[in-house]
């Protein structure tokens, strides 16, 4: 069975029906290239009025075969290039055949799907807001190599196409109509086909806008003075975002501009060459691995006990209306879940609800929400100072201060009014769950739900299983996290769990380097150039040195309790010195940075007291120390079974604690580095900078087996 069926109706309209027999979605791969070429050849020898391109699946077309694309290398680069060119010849033949071709977009048309639609003269989409179209290739380190770059630039101009190509901006049918990407909207499949038929029968001699005589690129070609001015700064603005570690946006802009200066066929060939280069590269492989395969595994529930029925939370209670509690309440409400936001009194609780009011008001002003929608969302949040209001909640999220005694008290108070079956979760970022569960009379219903700040923006929630947390509780936590549109990872109980523990290593290493005498600006810039969203010193200021110090003290106490000695960390003396100087961070308006009322924060000049002008350390070492120390700690988490899956490790490190996306996550960073190379580099760091870089046993074992993590 071919992946495209060829049918002709009574009106002499050929239907090219996308219907891959052995898959739930249509894919672009070698087989598609073959079958597409065949139907195009059939068309050439046939007599017909026009063509309708449509899908028999629930989606229109899913795009490239990522399994195949993640295996592109120098060896098969030529094969992939020719396959791509073959598909593009078919697309080009279709759009230059002179007969009207209509795409009937019944469902998602992403990547190659949208590119296929672009090769049609007329695009009609079913008017469903959930129907998504766009070119998300860039988010996987690739570029739209099926004519997407070339056609989008010719359709919208260089500037107009930019967000769709370099940011992977998606759009629904109505937005597509407004942007000139979609020609017509249909309310039903039948209406869509009759619209297509009508349009075809009304046409004679059709061609694409870019094939019309006198065609000019909207907004002007690169040689146009106004465009040229922008071109000098465009790559630089892009690089400020990619930091030089994400090759795809840079390749996309290059292909856009180069393609806009030559004829169509040459432009699309240039696009193919850039595509193959990206596909061969390591960054695309890292990103496809993590943001496609691994994220899909998580979405499908790879870390969720699979023998438990899906559960939907009906009503949530959030204890503590501080920044975290307020953010969690907002997130529940916008996902349609009624939520009681409880604090010691209703005034504090209302203050927490104000956070939602503020966020929603912003959306009202920008036109993203209506007054009715906002009122409806706010009506879901009950600000309360009364524990009795918790009675009918089936999930309680405790977000009070990080104080064991306080947490124990609110746990007991809540459980007194809750149903037996209610789930209780603590949003602690460091305190072991098993210990906190001791305050609970139902420890099997007790788990950790670690949100990240700001809650409304951060996509991750770390679920922590205490020793007694039941599989059912874990499954319910998992389902809840997905219910509020976030990504769950599952970890076992330990001090700092996974994310906080690895995050501490990042800030610790930054401060250790400062203590060695490396200029603060070099540390911050190196982090930035490695792809971290923020430097270790800046983020330490955010969380405050007081908190870092508190964690350190708790660590020492816990070590002592276990009868072990605290080995110390080279950052300790920096923390001590800064606190001695009363520079505890952003809240104090004085930390590693100064926070003047105007002009923005800047590094405190007093940091020169740490400077060692004799020190010569390559920038690459600074970058890699940050990347390595986090990766090594992640391996230790795996080794200690705090983490049970590399999938959770990769996603958690990027979504939760800012590990650079180009790496594909803490573990993928090691795999792509090569385990043996990673070990020998870690050993050098261990000898030069300290024992903390010693490669963990698990890594050495894997290297001996010749396996990846």
């Amino acid at each position: 069975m071919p992946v495209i069926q060829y049918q002709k109706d009574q009106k002499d309209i050929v239907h090219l029906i996308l219907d891959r027999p052995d898959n739930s979605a249509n894919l672009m791969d070698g087989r598609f290239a073959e079958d597409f070429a065949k139907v195009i050849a059939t068309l050439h020898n046939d007599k017909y009025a026009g063509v309708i391109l449509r899908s028999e699946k629930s989606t229109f077309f899913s795009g490239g075969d990522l399994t195949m694309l993640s295996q592109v290398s120098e060896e098969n680069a030529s094969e992939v290039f020719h396959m791509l060119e073959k598909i593009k010849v078919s697309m080009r033949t279709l759009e230059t055949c002179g007969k009207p071709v209509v795409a009937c977009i019944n469902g998602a048309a992403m990547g190659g799907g949208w590119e296929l639609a672009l090769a049609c003269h007329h695009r009609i989409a079913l008017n469903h807001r959930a129907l998504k179209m766009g070119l998300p290739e860039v988010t996987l380190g690739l570029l739209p190599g099926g004519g997407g770059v070339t056609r989008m630039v010719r359709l919208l101009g260089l500037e107009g196409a930019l967000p769709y190509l370099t940011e992977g901006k998606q759009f629904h049918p109505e937005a597509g109509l407004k942007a000139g990407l979609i020609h017509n909207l249909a309310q039903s499949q039948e209406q869509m086909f009759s619209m297509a038929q009508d349009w075809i029968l009304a046409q004679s001699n059709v061609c694409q806008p870019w094939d019309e005589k006198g065609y000019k690129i909207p907004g002007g070609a690169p040689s146009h003075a106004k465009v040229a001015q922008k071109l000098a700064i465009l790559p630089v603005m892009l690089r400020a975002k990619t930091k030089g570690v994400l090759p795809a946006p840079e390749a996309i802009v290059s292909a856009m501009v180069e393609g806009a200066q030559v004829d169509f066929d040459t432009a699309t060939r240039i696009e193919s060459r850039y595509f193959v280069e990206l596909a061969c590269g390591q960054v695309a492989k890292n990103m496809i691995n993590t943001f496609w395969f691994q994220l899909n595994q998580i979405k499908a529930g790879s870390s969720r006990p699979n023998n438990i029925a899906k559960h939907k939370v009906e009503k949530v209670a959030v204890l503590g209306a501080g920044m975290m509690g307020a953010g969690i309440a907002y997130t529940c409400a916008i996902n349609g879940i009624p939520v009681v936001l409880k604090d010691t009194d209703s005034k504090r609780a209302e203050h927490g609800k104000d956070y939602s009011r503020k966020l929603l008001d912003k959306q009202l002003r920008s036109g993203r929400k209506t007054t009715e929608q906002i009122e409806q969302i706010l009506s879901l949040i009950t600000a309360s100072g009364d524990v009795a209001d918790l009675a009918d909640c089936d999930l309680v999220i405790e977000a009070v201060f990080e104080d064991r005694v306080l947490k124990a008290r609110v746990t007991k108070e809540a459980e007194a009014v809750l149903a037996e079956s209610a789930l209780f979760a603590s949003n602690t970022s460091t305190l072991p769950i098993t210990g906190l569960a001791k305050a609970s009379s139902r420890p099997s219903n007790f788990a950790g739900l670690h949100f990240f700040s700001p809650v409304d923006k951060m996509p991750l929630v770390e679920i922590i299983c205490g020793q007694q947390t039941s599989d059912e509780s874990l499954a319910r936590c998992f389902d809840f996290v997905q219910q509020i549109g976030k990504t769950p990872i599952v970890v076992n109980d330990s001090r700092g769990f996974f994310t906080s523990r690895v995050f501490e290593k990042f800030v610790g290493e930054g401060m250790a380097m400062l203590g060695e005498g490396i200029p603060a600006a070099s540390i911050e810039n190196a982090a930035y150039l490695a792809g971290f969203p923020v430097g270790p010193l800046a983020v330490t200021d955010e969380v405050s040195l007081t908190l870092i110090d508190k964690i350190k003290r708790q660590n020492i106490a816990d070590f002592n309790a276990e009868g072990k000695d605290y080995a110390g960390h080279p950052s300790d003396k920096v923390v001590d010195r800064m606190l001695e100087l009363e520079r505890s961070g952003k809240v104090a308006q004085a930390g590693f940075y100064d926070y003047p009322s105007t002009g923005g924060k800047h590094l405190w000049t007093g940091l020169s007291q740490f400077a060692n002008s004799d020190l010569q350390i390559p920038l690459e070492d600074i970058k890699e120390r940050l990347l390595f120390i986090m990766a090594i700690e992640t391996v230790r988490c795996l080794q200690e079974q705090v983490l049970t899956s590399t999938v959770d490790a990769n996603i958690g490190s990027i979504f939760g604690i800012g590990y650079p996306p180009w790496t594909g996550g803490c573990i993928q960073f090691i795999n792509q580095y090569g385990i043996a190379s990673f070990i020998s580099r870690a050993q050098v760091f261990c000898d030069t900078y300290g024992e903390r870089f010693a490669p963990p046993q698990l890594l050495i074992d894997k290297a001996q087996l010749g396996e990846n993590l």
Partner: protein
Amino acid sequence: MTSEAFIFDAVRTPRGRGKASGSLYEVKPINLLSQLLKALQQRNEFDTHSVDDIVMGCVTPIGDQGADIAKTAALVAGWEDDVAGVTLNRFCASGLESVNMAAMKIRSGWEHLVVAGGVESMSRVPMGSDGGAWAMDPETNINTGFMPQGIGADLIATLEGFSREEVDHFAMNSHHKAAKAWQRKAFARSIIPVKDRNNLSILEQDETIRGDSSMATLANLKPSFLQPGQLGFDAVAKQKYPWVERINHVHTPGNSSGIADGAAALLIGSEQMAKRYDLNPRARIVSTALVGTDPTIMLTGPAPAARKALKLAGLNAADIGLFEVNEAFASVVLRFQKEMKIDPDKINVNGGAIAMGHPLGATGAMILGTLLDELEVRNKRFGLATLCVGGGMGIATIIERV
């Protein structure tokens, strides 16, 4: 057996403000240059048959000043058909590169009389309007760390710790020195006023000098490169200079070279030509040098270029009586002075491009003429002219009065 390359004469137009409001905006670049060629011939009375080549710098050689303006100007000036002409582009060094290339032609013994100089009408042909892969091709732009010069100038100031006050002070002095130079007719020997078709004068003096320039007025100007820096160029700079936290954007239109229109030409030849036309060799070109440096900071070429030229000449910086260091930006000259440990009283004694403007293709030839005139006035022996150059290059020329 090499022959010496002598400078017989140096002429230039006054510099006009490089805007539509500037006096030379109405003048075609071809006229700026052909008027100078005519004047040069009339002053020196050589037979244009003997001119082997005309080498002219032009940095944006398109439109009005496109194609090969050197040859076209010779035709317009009525020079003999057998005079050749070439236009070259070494960015801001183009004018001095023309002189250096002329000197090499003469010293090779293969040519004997060459006119060298440059022309730029920045009011008519805006800087950067000729495109080019460095800025306009995204792949090249990204991979080479393209930055506008001004960010490099601000980066120099940041690295060297030059404050806004220091660069403004330097700028104010440039204006004061230029104003005084005009008062004592320091440029009288080389200035050729620009005339219209009725021989009426259009511009007789450099147009942008402010004799009353003050720290207060300079301090009011806004930094020119703060916004492009914030858009992303500062991040490019920090990739190469990661120990810099933030760039101190000290340069403004007041302490950077002015956009200007103008042309310059020097007559350079061998001893044989001196004898044939009874030309007086005013100086010999002792050495020339080019260097490449980091293209991102871009403007640190003058010192290494000067050192290279000094080494070739077997001289020390102390042997040089006067320096002309192009005032592309104040920090460029301040850094040169600091790096080479030179008495500021020896540098740009008659002001520079901050006061008088920087017609890109011509400036190098202009400052060499200024250097020669002033060496004669002060009876000094050696002079050195140098410029920072786009793409991270540097150029220098040493002359000796004979």
